[in-house]
């Protein structure tokens, strides 16, 4: 018998109006590629492959690893969304579920919807091939595509293991240590995408080092390409069994987390929302801040993490440090300023009409939340540059603030016009913005 979940997903796919959506990010990458080339592929100017193969290989290894890590991060978040908080769960919660078959169908749908990610990387790496090194281009794409496959499988496995760890008494001490102000069980879910990125990141590190070595004549390095897909296959073999044991339990976990927050709301709610003191007399801003903090907390937290990474990128006397900061922090800023699209997808369409709040006020509030969250990325790296390089910090900080402002405006506009589907408009626009800024300043 065919998988009923796959059949339903196929039927839904045919009826949902999203057919062109996968093409837009790839087209955006085609436009972004020449803009981003100076920042991403600066090593090409160090010399033709062959004449300075060590410099070429080192630069190529770094960019392949970074692109692979970005793709893996996106897949880690997507597997979390599809498996844990996806649209199937509330529908299927009322019925018995063949979790193994369901997770196969979910993985296939995630793969189909996110297949553009390695293609974007392939387009961004295209100048490597165009300038004569097609072997390197193919090797680099093999690393990124392997990382994509690996993140898909490892993502499902680790998120299912996260459900188990949330209920396991042996993890309660660790989760208490990590949870901060969150309910204990939520800690397992918050850190799961990071665990996926760590595991896949190690595989990508080895694979990109293998390609780099192979380009310098160490032929064994090609075998390293098998590490990410191999890890993916091993993880995937465990997934049906993990799904049978833990997919259904995730519903209880989510109810537990939501119930714990509801209990908190009854007592000292006002003190537990990040930046809510800024929302005096602005109910729509307070709502956006509360929704953002409670539903999308992972994003501001990832922003702080990115700010920490950018701080190290900027903590240097190297004149190129400012450029590095713009590339790294700019990407993180633009990832965060897409938050208005996610905020709008959770708001009932009738609510603002019923409350009599103008859509433009809501859009401005969502944009402000995005801009505020982006400060978690910008301020640490500007501080580092200020200490180490003085005036450059003003220039870089100003550029990042402009980028955050423009990103927040674009994100809000996409959310206002496209609601839950706004990310499909915002994503390509953000890629182009980042490529433009990184190409000019990176």
């Amino acid at each position, binding site marked *: 018998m065919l998988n009923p979940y796959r059949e339903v997903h196929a*039927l839904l796919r045919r009826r949902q109006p999203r057919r062109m959506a996968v093409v837009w990010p790839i087209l955006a990458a085609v436009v972004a590629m020449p803009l981003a080339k100076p920042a991403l592929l600066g090593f090409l100017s160090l010399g033709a492959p062959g004449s300075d193969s060590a410099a070429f290989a080192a630069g190529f290894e770094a960019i392949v690893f970074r692109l692979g890590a970005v793709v893996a991060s996106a897949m880690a978040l997507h597997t979390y969304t599809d498996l844990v908080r996806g649209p199937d769960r509330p529908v299927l919660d009322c019925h*018995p579920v063949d979790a193994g078959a369901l997770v196969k169908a979910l993985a296939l749908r995630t793969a189909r919807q996110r297949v553009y990610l390695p293609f974007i990387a392939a387009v961004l790496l295209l100048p490597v091939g165009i300038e004569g090194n097609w072997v390197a281009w193919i090797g680099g794409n093999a690393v990124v595509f392997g990382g994509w496959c690996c993140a898909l499988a490892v993502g499902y496995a680790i998120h299912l293991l996260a459900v188990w760890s949330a209920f396991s008494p042996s993890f309660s001490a660790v989760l208490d240590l990590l949870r901060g102000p969150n309910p204990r069980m939520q800690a397992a879910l918050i850190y799961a995408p990071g665990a996926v990125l760590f595991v896949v990141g190690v595989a990508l590190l080895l694979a990109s080092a293998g390609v780099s070595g192979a380009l310098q004549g160490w032929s064994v390095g090609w075998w390293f390409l098998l590490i990410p897909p191999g890890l993916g296959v091993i993880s995937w073999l465990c997934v049906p069994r993990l799904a049978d044991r833990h997919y259904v339990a995730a519903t209880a976990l989510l109810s537990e987390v939501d119930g714990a927050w509801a209990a908190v709301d009854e007592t000292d709610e006002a003190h537990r929302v990040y930046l809510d003191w800024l929302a005096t007399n602005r109910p729509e801003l307070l709502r956006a801040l509360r929704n953002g903090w409670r539903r999308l907390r992972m994003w501001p937290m990832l922003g702080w993490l990115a700010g920490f990474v950018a701080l190290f990128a900027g903590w240097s006397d190297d004149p190129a440090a400012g450029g590095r900061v713009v590339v790294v922090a700019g990407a993180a800023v633009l990832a965060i300023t897409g938050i208005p699209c996610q905020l709008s997808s959770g708001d009932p369409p009738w609510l603002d009409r019923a409350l009599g709040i103008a859509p433009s006020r809501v859009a401005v509030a969502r944009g402000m939340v995005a801009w505020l969250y982006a400060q978690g990325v910008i301020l640490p790296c500007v501080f580092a540059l200020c200490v180490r390089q003085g005036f450059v910090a003003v220039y870089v900080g100003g550029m990042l603030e402009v980028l955050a402002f423009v990103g927040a405006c674009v994100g809000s506009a996409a959310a206002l016009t496209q609601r839950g589907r706004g990310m499909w408009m915002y994503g390509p626009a953000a890629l182009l913005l980042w490529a433009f800024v990184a190409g000019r300043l990176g």
Partner: protein
Amino acid sequence: MNEQKPAVMVDDVVKKFGRVKAVNGLSFLVQPGEFIGLVGPNGAGKSTMIKMLTGQLLPTSGTIQIAGIDLTSGADRARGLIGYVPEEPSLYEYLTAREMIEFVVRIRGKGDVDAALEIAGLGDDSNRIIQEYSQGMRRKTALAAAMVAQPPVLILDEALNGLDPPSASRVLSALQQARTKGAAIILSTHVLDTLEKVATRIIMIRGGSLLADAPVSDLDRVRGLFDD
């Protein structure tokens, strides 16, 4: 289902969220063929109790069994025995009601699609996609999906809200039929008049504790407690 075992057994169940006790030592049994009205004011703990009965929330302490299966350890197995309509039903928006019910029949392994659609009373609308449905039509689709495989336990959370009187009457009659065939039914509601016609027993909770467990003939007494 084994006739010796109650359809639903709730034994000293407590549910805490942090310091808040949503359900406080609740115990009751539901036998096959019983129609229970679970009533209580807003915030009484009805929805928390319903979520625990369907395995969507685990009790902090105590035991819940569905036909002898412990929900804490066998939620996935117990789901096959439960037909459940949540307060806000979720459905695949781009399926028609007929396709939705056909899908449920496939994953449950049995059921009569046409008979279920007749209960829903959607007529030709069953071939329109659910996204175009009103709240009432969605609820009727969810009811049909819950009843299509004739599960031995039906748990309905405010499931009659938003139904027009003819639809509510048709659904209640279908529920009565299911009950006479041996299904145990738990209907959470705050409309006591509905229960007078169909329920065999009323369980009233307030503040997470059992306030009354009485035959439907004592409805007036329960109504008095409700008004208090």
